[in-house]
């Protein structure tokens, strides 16, 4: 049973067609890595899954609910889909703890103590419980991104979307974020990860996809993807980044 299903999804920015008919599905508990050159539409696609971008043609189903203009559906889907951004997008006026507890308190209507307990648990999990009372601006990039992951997890999502989570980080900090993501993947979370970290893809992905020019060029197991790619475009892509 697939938890995310997209059928022939198309999107335009003015005259420019960013997505040229993407059809795919993701099974529950699967870790999917999407690779591809910049401007290939991979970020646009995962942003369509929680409606940060609106697709103009085709259908997207998340956990059986179709994404339409119905605000109720959008809110329902957003509360089940966690998202981690390239630029972290933490709330700078709130402490780390407040960043994490905000949505559980206001959207899930949890009590403050309950939300804070859960938040401390998550901070423990991402390895920075001692930073709970600091503001995002006082943390390093890697720490901020781990807080962002904890913030997304606090809503107890069924699916996690990662939009180039390590692209804005210093090389030394990439590992600490990837470690958290690996741990998350092993815990059985459904994940879609847009990334250039091919090491991560090799190690934890169940499937790897290559996007190019708004199209899904290749879809394969990591083993096959890296060692025996089907399309020439994948070969070219791999030769450039490896």
């Amino acid at each position, binding site marked *: 049973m697939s938890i995310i299903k997209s059928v022939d999804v198309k999107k335009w920015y003015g005259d420019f067609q960013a997505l040229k008919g993407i059809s795919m599905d993701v099974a529950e508990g699967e870790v999917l890595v999407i690779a591809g050159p910049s401007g290939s539409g991979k970020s646009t696609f995962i942003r369509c899954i*929680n*409606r*940060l971008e609106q697709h103009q043609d085709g259908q997207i189903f998340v956990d059986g609910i179709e994404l339409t203009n119905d605000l109720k559906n959008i*809110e329902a889907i*957003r*509360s089940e*889909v*966690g*998202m981690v*951004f390239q*630029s972290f*997008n*933490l*709330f*700078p*006026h709130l402490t780390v703890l407040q960043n994490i507890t*905000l*949505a559980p308190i*206001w*959207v899930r209507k949890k009590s403050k103590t309950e939300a804070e307990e859960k938040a401390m648990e998550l901070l423990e999990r991402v390895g920075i419980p001692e930073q709970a009372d600091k*503001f*995002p*601006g006082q943390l390093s990039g890697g720490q901020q991104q781990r807080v962002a992951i904890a*913030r*997304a997890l606090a*809503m107890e999502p069924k699916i996690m979307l990662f939009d180039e989570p390590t692209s804005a980080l210093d090389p030394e900090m990439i590992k600490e974020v990837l470690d958290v993501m690996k741990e998350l993947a092993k815990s059985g979370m459904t994940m879609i990860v847009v990334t250039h970290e091919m090491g991560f893809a090799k190690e934890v992905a169940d499937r790897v996809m290559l996007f190019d020019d708004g199209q899904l060029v290749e879809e394969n197991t990591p083993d096959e993807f890296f060692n025996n790619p089907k399309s020439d475009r994948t070969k070219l892509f791999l030769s450039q980044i490896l």
Partner: protein
Amino acid sequence: MIQVAIKTLNSDKVIPYQKYVTYGMLALTAVVFFLPVLRQLKLLFLITWLLVSIAPTVANSKESARNLSIVWTVTVFILILLMRGASSESLIIVPGSSIYGGFTLTWLIAFFGIAISFPFGVVLALGRTSKLPIIRIICTAVIELVRSVPFITWLFFGSVMLTLFLPKGVEFDEVLRAIVVTAIFSSAYLAENVRGGLQSINNGQFEAADAVGLSTLQRITLIIMPQALRAVIPPIVSQVISLFKDTSLVAIVGLFDLLYIGSKVIPNQSQGANFLGTIQENILFCAIFYWLFTYSFARRSMKIEKRLGLGER
């Protein structure tokens, strides 16, 4: 006691017994007011208490800020009460029907003008940045209309023209009208300041708020507004200072504010005491009085900015 007040004003940190000094002064002032002593002495106590009570505005502590708000709220009511009593047989004869005159009037118009304009300004700013065309057009029209006409014209409109549009017999208090006009005028400027703050917010903040499932209202009140308002503290304080001083314009529609009483009323009186020709001294006093307040606003805003960590995101 004035020395204590000045000492408190000069010190950078709030002195530990500030709270008790303030409460003590409040009690003393109240007692003195009901004793048959010289009116000058009563006023001296009142002014000293004012000085003591504004001292926390230049102090840097959360507790003092909380006490301050309580003290100021109490001040409003007590000032009105005392001024009511004192104006009945004052040394200074204030013409006009309104019981409010002098600093009470200046203060009333400035305080309520700003307080009322705040929510309206925020709503207008949100309306102007709204995606819905009707709301956007209405808010933009209101802001531009209010801004394009001078404050004095609006005051005239409020005091002279408004009665023409209202049904016969319906009349508002002159002071109330001045407050409403001030609030409307101020909210248009405030809206533009807040809009500047809204535009400074990174798009990622909207996306992150959406992604964690916040509703539109929660997104605005919990994420966007706190950041937008924090970003525009300096222009807002600037506006508050400017509005505080602009209240002296209400003299034009026949209200007797601090400056008008100082520059026109007192120098022409010789009842009770001989104040004839004291215009220079009075204007100097008014200037210092205005400075004292505007400077404490400015100091306060600096402290708030520091506490909210402006510029260290």
